[in-house]
């Protein structure tokens, strides 16, 4: 009755060998293809470095005017612009300016990559049920797998640095982009689609004139979620060498520096709120036509 109380697990030796084979296999793969994969991500690294250099070398008053200007163009709301500028001033005053800029650069690049990769995948998913069935479980894994687990192979392949950090951020942040693009397009009013067909739209015209514009509120919600999740990933990404606000947080965890952790944590929250409010206000402004209702 021994098997009843203790699970009849795999033989210890077999299990050890299995793990060893897998590890060695992956190591061999890394040695073989590591360089190729690294060169594949070269443009991404270039983009990231340029963004970071721009954010950190531009004088701070110019940066504040620039970010305030973007907030105004997107939201047309003085309250949001005021809040944005105040938050940035506080971050600077507490000596977190350069870390904050590095983090914003990372989030910016991560979000752009997520949008560029995520929207087309979402569109294909909306058009093909088969593709949806295939992608959905992958997205589930990406969202539930602890991020440390996929950090291991990424670091083995690409070493420690910005690009592996960016990949970790994108893996974590892209699922809502894909899911909400798919959902938004699937929810487009069938009657309007039928009208587009009846007038002889090609499938590209249908996508561009009807599906994307009508799915835009949902897609905007996806972008908003992606930004928030990318920010949440900042601290974890700092473990593999991503610079920014995550580094001091990590240091304060190791050294039990309460105030250092708190300040940097609040700076992340502040940036998150700026991104959230501005992107939401922009999304709402795109939907102006839905607010004015015939009464």
């Amino acid at each position, binding site marked *: 009755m021994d098997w009843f109380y203790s699970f009849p697990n795999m033989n210890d030796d077999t299990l050890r060998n299995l793990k060893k084979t897998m590890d060695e296999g992956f190591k061999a793969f890394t040695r073989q293809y590591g360089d190729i994969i690294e060169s594949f991500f070269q443009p991404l690294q270039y983009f990231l470095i340029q963004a970071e250099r721009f954010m950190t070398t531009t004088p701070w008053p110019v940066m504040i005017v620039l970010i305030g200007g973007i907030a105004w163009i997107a939201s047309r709301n003085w309250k949001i612009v005021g809040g944005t500028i105040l938050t940035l001033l506080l971050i600077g005053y507490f000596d977190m300016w350069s870390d904050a800029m590095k983090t914003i650069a990372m989030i910016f690049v991560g979000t752009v990559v997520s949008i560029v990769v995520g929207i087309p995948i979402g569109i294909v998913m909306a058009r093909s049920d088969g593709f949806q069935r295939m992608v959905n479980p992958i997205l589930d894994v990406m969202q539930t797998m602890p991020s440390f687990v996929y950090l291991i192979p990424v670091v083995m392949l690409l070493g420690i640095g910005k690009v592996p950090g960016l990949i970790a951020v994108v893996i974590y942040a892209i699922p809502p982009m894909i899911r909400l693009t798919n959902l938004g397009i699937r929810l487009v009013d069938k009657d309007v689609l*039928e*009208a587009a067909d009846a007038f002889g739209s090609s499938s590209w015209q249908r996508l561009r004139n009807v599906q994307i*514009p009508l799915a835009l509120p949902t897609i905007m919600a996806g972008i908003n979620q992606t930004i928030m999740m990318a920010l949440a990933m900042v601290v974890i990404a700092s473990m593999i060498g991503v610079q920014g606000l995550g580094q001091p947080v990590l240091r304060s965890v190791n050294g039990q520096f309460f105030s250092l952790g708190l300040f940097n944590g609040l700076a992340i929250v502040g940036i998150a709120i700026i991104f959230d409010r501005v992107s939401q206000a922009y999304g709402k402004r795109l939907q102006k036509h*839905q607010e004015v209702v015939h009464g």
Partner: protein
Amino acid sequence: MADRSVQGAGIKIKNLYKIFGQRPQAYVEAVKKGMSKTELNEDHGHVLGLRDINIDMPAGCIQVVMGLSGSGKSTLIRHINRLIDPTAGEVIIDGADVCKMNQNDLRQFRRHKTAMVFQKFALLPHRTVLDNTVYGLEIQGLSREKQEEQARRWIGRVGLKGFEDHYPNQLSGGMQQRVGLARALTNDAPILLMDEAFSALDPLIRMDMQSVLLDLQKEIKKTVVFITHDLDEALRLGDRIAILRDGEVVQQGTGQDIVLKPADEYISSFVKEVNRGRVIMVDTIATQSGAPSATGGVTVKTGTILEEAAKTMTDANQQYATVIDDNGKPTGVISMNNLIQAMVTPISHLTSKAAAE
């Protein structure tokens, strides 16, 4: 072309069948041999949409297809521009069978030959009235100036001048459907498909839109296919009417034919509610004999409806009137007695109604 003013193209629907389900082709033969709708549904899990539809729609006329919900009328109109693929049969327009076109030809056909107006308007909510109206031309790839020129003209014609920059949400239902109509007309296609276009509007607005359509039709002379569940609307608009029930045509003809000679109980149950005085024309009750000497000079033209004839006669305080044709030649005589008899609902209809209650 004998009549240059007719822009429309005739539509011939031949032996059209539609079966909904997983394997429609497998049951077409059985349905052709007479399998009933119930049998097909209960024993084989397929739904019979249309059975052996044959309608010949002449160019430049308004063809109404009438039926209650579930009769297959919306399915039928979607076969004309093949938004729904038929299971068997042909839809011939300009000598080409729509059902056999490839994707590319079909797209060209939809762009240039047909335009459609929808029950729920189906406007693009993120576009202004003007941008909605140009949609068909935009798809065709015309220059923006040409698009706007056409669109503005039709927006004006449907009475929406000044609303070009409004969004659909800012407009009432009636105005939204005017946009739908303008969008379809701007396409300048010979065939106009209207799927319960006015059913979602309240009665007064609906009458209004019917008048707009009839006025426009005098000028554009397109082949209009109009779907409705409302017999009054069918009689007001239709040059020809086809009545659908359970996916089959039960009667087709002019409004006169249908009101005066309903093919079966089903149709007479509709017809009995109709205001006959506004449908029946004097021609149908005029007699050659009678008392021409007593008409007192009152004349009514052929094609006048009974109600108008009655008004003319009472205004002149006469019991008889002479019916004359377009050249002023007398063709018959009507009496007030006949007139009233024709206007009141026949006994057979009343009794069938009483029996039903």
